């Protein structure tokens, strides 16, 4: 019997977060070898649209644990609901996205299910016998480690965003609503949620990122970085030096002590390329470096290099892209 795969998806502002479709694609990749059934689960309140989206992108069954008591995120309540579902439906493999949501839940669910666990996974190699080989970068991406999660154990894995393309539309799964509610009152209670990105693309899941370094010289000058990011529909990042100088908040820092990102396109502007920064972005599919200094180490990691003054290059690039992308 192949293992049933359970994809744990998450919602944002009532809709399905893109990482859910990526995780679904990862599940299908495993199912292609093992013949498993791919199911998905959402926990929250007002999940109809998100559940329908999962059902239309290849999940055979979507479990919607939908109740007002789940409206606010609770690590304890969500762990309880997800573990119960996985146990009751006999999930042999549970896939999360390695977002702050997935990072918070996957270890707790794995403990409850007495499962094998690997987080922040960038490669999946399903074995014919139901075992699962996964690749997880260690030493902040200085080397990759391969792990085997054996067939005879429940497997819990969280996938780094942007590794799989979102699952394409197709399929007509069914949605099963579960009338569960939070049983015991959580001991840790979310009192307030403050948004910092203000509806903009979140750094961790952005497909395109434009980052600036200390050579931007001020917070105001980051405007040219923001303009370029906007034309690309991407997010703004920053080096540690730029964050330490107060030009950008820490939530935008890319690197060892910031975020590890994995976009399709990464444009580094005025960033020299300290190892601290490189480990946070070097798995990006295409890297462009713009820097005055032709010997800057960033060029050793970049695919395309522009030697020049970022204050000249970036605005012209923004204009050129506006024309090219028809904006």
């Amino acid at each position: 019997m192949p293992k049933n795969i359970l994809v744990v998806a998450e919602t944002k502002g009532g809709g399905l977060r893109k990482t859910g479709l990526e995780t679904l694609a990862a599940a299908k990749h495993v199912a292609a070898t093992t013949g498993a059934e791919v199911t998905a689960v959402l926990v929250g309140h007002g999940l109809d649209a998100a559940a329908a989206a999962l059902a239309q992108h290849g999940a055979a069954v979507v479990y919607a644990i939908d109740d007002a008591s789940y409206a606010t995120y609770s690590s304890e309540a969500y762990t309880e609901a997800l573990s119960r579902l996985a146990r009751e439906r006999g999930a042999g493999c549970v896939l999360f996205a390695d977002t702050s949501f997935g990072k918070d839940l996957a270890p707790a669910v794995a403990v409850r299910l007495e499962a094998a666990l690997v987080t922040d996974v960038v490669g999946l190699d399903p074995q014919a016998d139901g075992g699962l080989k996964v690749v997880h970068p260690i030493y902040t991406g200085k080397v990759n480690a391969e792990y085997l999660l054996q067939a005879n154990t429940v497997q819990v894995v969280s996938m780094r965003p942007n590794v799989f393309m979102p699952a394409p539309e197709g399929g007509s799964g069914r949605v099963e609503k579960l009338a569960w509610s939070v049983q015991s009152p959580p001991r840790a209670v979310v009192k307030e949620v403050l948004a910092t990105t203000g509806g903009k693309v979140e750094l961790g899941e952005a497909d395109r990122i434009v980052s600036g370094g200390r050579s931007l010289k001020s917070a105001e000058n980051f405007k040219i970085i923001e303009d370029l990011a906007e034309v690309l529909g991407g997010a703004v990042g920053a080096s540690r030096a730029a964050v330490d100088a107060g030009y950008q908040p820490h939530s935008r820092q890319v690197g060892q002590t910031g975020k590890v990102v994995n976009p399709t396109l990464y444009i580094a502007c005025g960033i020299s390329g300290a190892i601290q920064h490189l480990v946070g972005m070097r798995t990006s599919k295409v890297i462009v470096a713009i820097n005055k200094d032709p010997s800057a180490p960033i060029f050793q990691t970049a695919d395309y290099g522009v030697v020049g003054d970022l204050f000249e290059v970036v605005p012209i690039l923004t204009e050129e892209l506006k024309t090219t992308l028809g904006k």
Partner: protein
Amino acid sequence: MKIGVLVKQVPDTETKIRIGPDGTDIVREGIKYVMNPYDEFAVEQGLQIKEKQGGTPEVTVVSMGPASVAETVRTALAMGADRGVHLRDDAFEGGDALATARVLAAALRAENFDLVFTGKMAIDDNASVVPTAVAEMLNMPHVNLVQAFELAADGKTATVRRRIDGGEEIIECALPALFSCEKGLNEPRYASLTGIMKAKKKPIEEKNAAALGLAPGTVGAAGSGARRTRLLPLAERGACKFVEGDVREQVRTLVGLLRNESKVL
């Protein structure tokens, strides 16, 4: 009030990582080991609470690993922690994150801490598993990625600010509880010379699997569900292609390459 801090000894951030001859571990010779940088925020947080409470709460540092780990425990004692617990047994070696969490949870169970702090992630394994897993094993609430921490006057709850994707959550949490610390929570202090001198006399208790009541098959490599099969070098990137000409030409060439060669636009 009893405060526990979980720390890990890791290779210094500047370490060059090379794959060792057996293909599953890195070359260990010549590596300089330090306290995991995120754990420094955890130690500092414990010490700040102790100081605010007039020095009464005891701060205990707990760490797992081989003999060298005593140095990292000693560093935390030099910063101001009161005592150390060193979890040391050959049976603990080669464990995955959950097997490690099992050892730490067993040690914490014996201590009955009201507050447990640790770093959000260890910079060697990059798993971010241990904090949540330890809390879950102890049936204790946890809050990860804490950036601000405020203990209630009655010492029964804490109100914390936690980083989430695209925002922050304000969480009120009943104690006992575990908190994983994010950069920005505080500025870790350096150990003073007197601190270093005092630390030499502070107790570090060693505990092995038997002392923790753990069967050897449940910890270390034998107790791990995820077995490391090999290390893989990073894929080599091709050489950087520099675009030539004046700024406009450079930009036009770049856009052409992004569009037609790498097809990302």
